[in-house]
């Protein structure tokens, strides 16, 4: 009888707390040589945190890391690498203008006479290693000139340079074409034969079933379960990922939607969006669900005219807008509350009053001169309506809490008397009380007859707030759901499972 192989790596009862959030709660994970162990979970389930702990980039608060059954006391990036853990992050860490060989050997250069580089030997070895993983590429090419797929391979070759026994691939296919994905799987199979254990993080169910030997599900920082290949079925995995009950916390009035305010057809951009079709009617909250990287933020930006579109039409109240740009969008009554409100939504060093009037200034001051007293009066009106705390108009917005900063962003758009409001992650980083306030504001706007498009990664928010839901996947709107929507169907749809 064959001997049971021993786990190369075990993580036992790992916990990690960030200020205010329990990112990981008693999570366990193990890996055997020659297997692909898939890790899945919704956005924010704790996958990345777990992998950063494995790489030594984060320290754990409690729990054990065992390599070959031996508990490791110290676990730093250098020790992790020395023990054979190689990481390929979702964002590449390559030096664009330098060649393939130099990137693969970065930090571990071969030397001649101690002080000098042995380029010839590095190129030879780099070419061999690229061939080992199934890619032939001129190792003198700057990596910036390679395609994304080949860059990915350079990253993998880099990770494999030191004797790697555990290879972590974080969303390795998010930027690859179908052909490149097949090549990657070929490489993974070769590595399996060599006895490398692979941790594979992915959102895409088709891939997971094709390449995975076992699958572990995390949800809200907790370990939910591990299924072996024989056991797992997409529906079961999705159920494990969603799991929670969606409580009806959301203030919502019944309303009858009116005319179409915004219609988008066949919207494409040069990089991310492939085919976005959606419409929003007056008096309606439309949710946009999807995984990180599905192109939701890009869609909002393209609709608002921040990024140029390469195809498709945008209609506001039935009229086509030939050239959309933020000034045009604003003149048509469209407002965008962006995802990163600190960076894109506010002038943090300016007082509340200036921020409130930033978009609607010309409406209140058609002439050349902006008087302080009138500015204060106008701003006060909006600050009072939205109950911004503290109601001090001179306070710089960087001193406000997240919820009140979001209210200032909303006030800025109310000042243009908007018809269409686009919210990108309206309650990210906002505490529970303020969240409810933002939600009831959105409900109120819809009741007043405004058209609301809401992008959110929080499924309860999507389900609780929306009258209708679009789901995006890989730059396309792939599904539409009415009320009441089923969370499992939405998750499956967002992960690209074809029915």
């Amino acid at each position, binding site marked *: 009888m064959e001997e049971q192989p021993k786990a190369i790596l075990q993580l036992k009862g790992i916990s990690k707390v960030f200020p205010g959030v329990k990112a990981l709660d008693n999570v366990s994970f193990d890996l055997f040589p020659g297997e692909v162990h898939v890790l899945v979970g919704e956005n924010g389930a704790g996958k990345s945190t777990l992998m950063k702990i494995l790489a030594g980039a984060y320290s754990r608060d409690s729990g054990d890391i065992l390599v070959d059954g031996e508990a490791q006391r110290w676990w730093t*990036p250098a020790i992790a690498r020395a023990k054979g853990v190689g990481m390929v992050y979702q964002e590449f860490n*390559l*030096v*664009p*203008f330098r060649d393939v060989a*130099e990137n693969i050997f970065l930090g571990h250069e071969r030397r001649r006479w101690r002080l*000098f*580089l042995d380029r010839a030997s590095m190129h030879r070895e780099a070419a061999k290693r690229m061939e080992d993983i199934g890619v032939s590429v001129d190792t003198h090419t700057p990596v910036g000139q390679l395609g994304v797929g080949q860059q990915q391979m350079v990253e993998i070759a880099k990770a494999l340079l030191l004797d790697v026994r555990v290879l972590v691939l974080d969303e390795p296919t998010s930027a690859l074409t179908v052909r490149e994905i097949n090549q990657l799987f070929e490489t993974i199979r070769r590595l399996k034969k060599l006895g490398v254990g692979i941790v594979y993080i992915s959102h895409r169910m088709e891939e997971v079933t094709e390449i995975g030997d076992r699958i572990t599900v995390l949800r809200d920082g907790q370990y939910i379960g591990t299924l072996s290949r024989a056991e797992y079925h997409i529906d079961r995995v999705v159920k494990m990922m969603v799991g929670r009950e969606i409580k009806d916390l959301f203030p919502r009035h019944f309303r009858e939607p009116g005319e179409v305010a915004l219609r988008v057809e066949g919207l494409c951009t040069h990089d991310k969006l492939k085919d976005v079709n959606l419409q929003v009617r007056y008096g309606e909250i439309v949710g946009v669900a999807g995984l990180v990287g599905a192109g939701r933020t890009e869609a909002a930006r393209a609709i608002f005219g921040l990024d140029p579109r390469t195809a498709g039409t945008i209609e506001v109240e039935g009229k086509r807008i030939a050239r959309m740009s933020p000034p045009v969008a604003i003149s048509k009554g469209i407002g965008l509350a962006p995802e990163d409100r600190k960076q894109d939504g506010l002038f943090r060093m300016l007082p509340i009053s200036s921020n409130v009037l930033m978009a609607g200034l010309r409406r209140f001051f058609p002439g050349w001169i902006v008087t302080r007293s009138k500015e204060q009066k106008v701003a006060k009106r909006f600050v009072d309506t939205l109950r911004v705390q503290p109601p001090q108009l001179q306070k710089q917005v960087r001193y406000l809490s997240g919820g009140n900063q979001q209210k200032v962003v909303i006030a800025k758009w109310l000042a243009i008397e908007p018809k269409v409001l686009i919210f990108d992650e309206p309650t990210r980083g906002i505490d529970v009380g303020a969240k409810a306030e933002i939600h009831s504001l959105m409900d109120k706007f819809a009741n007043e007859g405004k058209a609301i498009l809401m992008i959110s990664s929080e499924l309860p928010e999507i389900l609780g707030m929306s009258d209708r839901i679009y789901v995006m996947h890989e730059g396309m709107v792939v599904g539409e759901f009415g009320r009441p929507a089923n969370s499992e169907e939405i998750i499956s749809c967002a992960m690209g499972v074809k029915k």
Partner: protein
Amino acid sequence: MTTASLGLSRRNTLRSSLRRLPPVIWALLLMIIFFGVCQPRFFSLSNAISMLCQGSILMILSLGVCVVTVAGGIDLSVGAVMTFSGMIMAWLLVNTSVPIAFILLATLLVGIAFGMLNGVFVSKMRIPSFIATLGTQGIALGLSLGMNKGYTISGLPPAIGYFGNGTFLALPIPIWLAVGAFLVTFVLLRFTPFGVYAYAIGGNEDALALAGKPSWLFKIFTFGYAGLMSGLAAIVVTARSMAAQPTVGVGMEFEAFSAAVLGGVFAGRGGAGETVLGVLFILILRNGLNVVGVPTYYQLAIIGMTLIVGMALSMVLERRLRR
């Protein structure tokens, strides 16, 4: 491999290496022809040697700036640091009886110290290099002026003149020193791990940190190297005029930076070779303008304009190439 495919690949590499040449080469050629036609004296050997000898100081400074720029920094202090190192050198030569070799070493060390200080400000205190080195420029310039109440220090021992006006194998010593500085910089950037790290810092600093290397330390070294070059330039400039003037380096940062950038040195790109081309460009431009009779005052304005036009052109070229 068949001979046919070999020939094909060779032709391809020739074409791509032609395309890979820095665009400044064509500008250089044009300029040489233009000035040569306007004033045949431009082509004389004595003109070339005096130009290169004059230019050795700029060459040495630019090579230091090149290393900092490649690693994603800006060094605006090289001229002032050169001045201050030169003042220290002259003061030591006039007021002490320390052997000349030690004084030269001290001059280099003053430069290195200033450079490392820049590096610490930028790397450890996270002050943008533009601001940190502008501050150091002020410090070094102020100290140079204060040392001798704004006056030149003169009366240096004649032996020191060798480094400015001596010759070796028929070429002036400053040219040899500049060539030496070029070779060292070239080898450093091209053939040592330090070079790889400098480019990595300029191209993607995180990549180097994730590879487990102390990128902050190598960043400090790049500024230290610029300091070393400032010290070397100080020796040449002081020995050439047999005196240390507290304003000798004013404006040199501008020229050194212009030379490196016009040659094609950017964060993560370019190198010693490109820097030499940029320096030759500026030297020939200046020399040609002199020969043609454009007053010195306007030369600075012309270099400034060239810098902007050159950058604008390279931006356009880059966008074209990317498509």
